[in-house]
């Protein structure tokens, strides 16, 4: 049913329908509305979950790890500083192969302190072993939660997952969202079946330490699991489409890319602006298209390679920067296209909430056509003097 809702509330409703048994999260702007909404939902017995009012994000994710290992479906949500505080636990959850699902309401990392949007928080955890899905709008943000649980808990995967959506731009925006009802949600997402759990009737030890004789093999298996999750993401996304009419089988999505000279690559809500800009550029005779990355981990390098094989240049938009190097997506795309001769130009932009307009996209396309890339786009005039 179509409803006009705030992004955070739509996500909280979708999460409710996924029936997590244990929720542990800590308030932080711009994620707070989610945990408040869930607290209310639990307080009104609309969800039979244990809501742990932890004293920090570090404990939130630690509690989720414990509850997941004990056999419950769990949920958390955070952003920015909260995610940074979870850093150590994130690697742990992935290494222990617990299918935790966590919403990341993307926000910049301090210093300087900023509550506004970019992707530095989740991108900084790209090496942690979590899946990372990025939503373009609130419909996608809600739908991706069902898919994330289904993929994460699949016994061929057993990896945790971030569902990322942009702070304020999506989280605080009212948009029409087609919500599944509980029956639909249940028919798509079966009850959680742990691969193994803490259980006195079948006592297992979790989280042993590995000597150099074994450690590398565990990391290898973790990597293999994340790579092969691609197929599961695709099939769970397809199944969602077959059941509810919105197909998510692609880990990437092309927009007017078929005959494009310039391909823009972007993630998250930015894709909406880019699409609008492309329509205008197309009207003006410029052959521009978009490749949206929905799944940054697993990273669908082959899919990307074939989607971009016909273009003359690629302009990658990154709402993050690896200081001293480049934006994360730019580096990955360049790696995916290695050997193809297609120039990949990187544009770091919109850090800490700077607005991106259609004319900025046009300017970036212009830059790309002139071969000018690997820049931070849109710096204040006084820095350029």
């Amino acid at each position, binding site marked *: 049913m179509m409803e006009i809702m705030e992004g955070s509330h739509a996500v909280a409703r979708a999460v409710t329908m996924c029936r997590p048994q244990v929720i542990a999260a800590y308030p932080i702007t711009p994620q707070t509305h989610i945990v408040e909404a869930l607290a209310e939902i639990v307080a009104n017995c609309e969800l039979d979950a244990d809501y742990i009012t932890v004293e920090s994000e570090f404990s939130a994710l630690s509690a989720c790890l414990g509850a997941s290992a004990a056999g419950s479906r769990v949920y958390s949500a955070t952003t920015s500083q909260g995610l940074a505080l979870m850093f150590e636990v994130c690697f742990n959850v992935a*290494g222990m*192969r617990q299918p935790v699902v966590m919403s990341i309401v993307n926000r910049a990392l301090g210093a300087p302190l900023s509550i506004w949007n970019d992707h530095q928080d989740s991108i900084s955890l790209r090496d942690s072993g979590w899946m990372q899905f990025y939503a373009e709008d609130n419909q996608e943000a809600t739908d991706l939660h069902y898919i994330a649980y289904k993929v994460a808990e699949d016994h061929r995967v*057993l990896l945790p997952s971030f569902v990322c959506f942009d702070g304020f731009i999506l989280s605080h925006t009212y948009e029409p969202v087609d919500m599944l009802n509980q029956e639909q949600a249940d028919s798509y997402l079966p009850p959680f079946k742990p691969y193994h759990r803490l259980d006195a009737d079948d006592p*297992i*030890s*979790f989280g*042993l330490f590995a000597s150099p004789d074994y450690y590398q*093999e565990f990391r290898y298996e973790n990597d293999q699991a994340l790579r092969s999750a691609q197929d599961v993401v695709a099939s769970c996304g397809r199944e969602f489409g077959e059941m509810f009419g919105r197909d998510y089988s692609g880990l990437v999505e092309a927009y007017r890319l078929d005959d494009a000279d310039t391909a823009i690559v972007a993630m998250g809500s930015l894709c909406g602006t880019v699409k609008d800009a492309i329509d205008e550029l197309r009207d003006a005779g410029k052959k521009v298209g978009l490749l949206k990355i929905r799944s940054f981990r697993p990273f669908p390098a082959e899919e990307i390679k074939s989607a971009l094989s016909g273009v003359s240049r690629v302009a990658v938009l990154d709402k993050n920067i690896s200081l001293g190097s480049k934006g994360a997506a730019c580096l990955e795309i360049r790696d995916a296209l290695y050997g193809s001769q297609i120039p990949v130009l990187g544009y770091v932009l919109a850090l800490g909430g700077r607005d991106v307009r259609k004319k900025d996209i046009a300017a970036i396309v212009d830059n790309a056509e002139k071969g000018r890339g690997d820049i931070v786009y849109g710096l204040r005039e006084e820095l350029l003097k």
Partner: protein
Amino acid sequence: MALNLGCTAKPGNARDNKTGSWRVFKPEFIREKCTQCGMCTIVCPEGCISPDEDEFPVPDYDYCKGCGLCAEECPSEAIEMKKEEK
């Protein structure tokens, strides 16, 4: 899968590690002096002492590290630490 998913293990396989090889001194239990008070069994950090069919304590030398705690705590001086012959 070659490894146990998520670095897990089932109970029992610590027994693969025979810590008895660490031993320098070996506890010898002298039945004649033993009152079967059970102190040695309680204090052994390995938990490797158990009663035989006559209820006398015997250590499992596969795992006994020879720490001497049982001998030190035995109220009847019924355990003697002897240099291990190897």
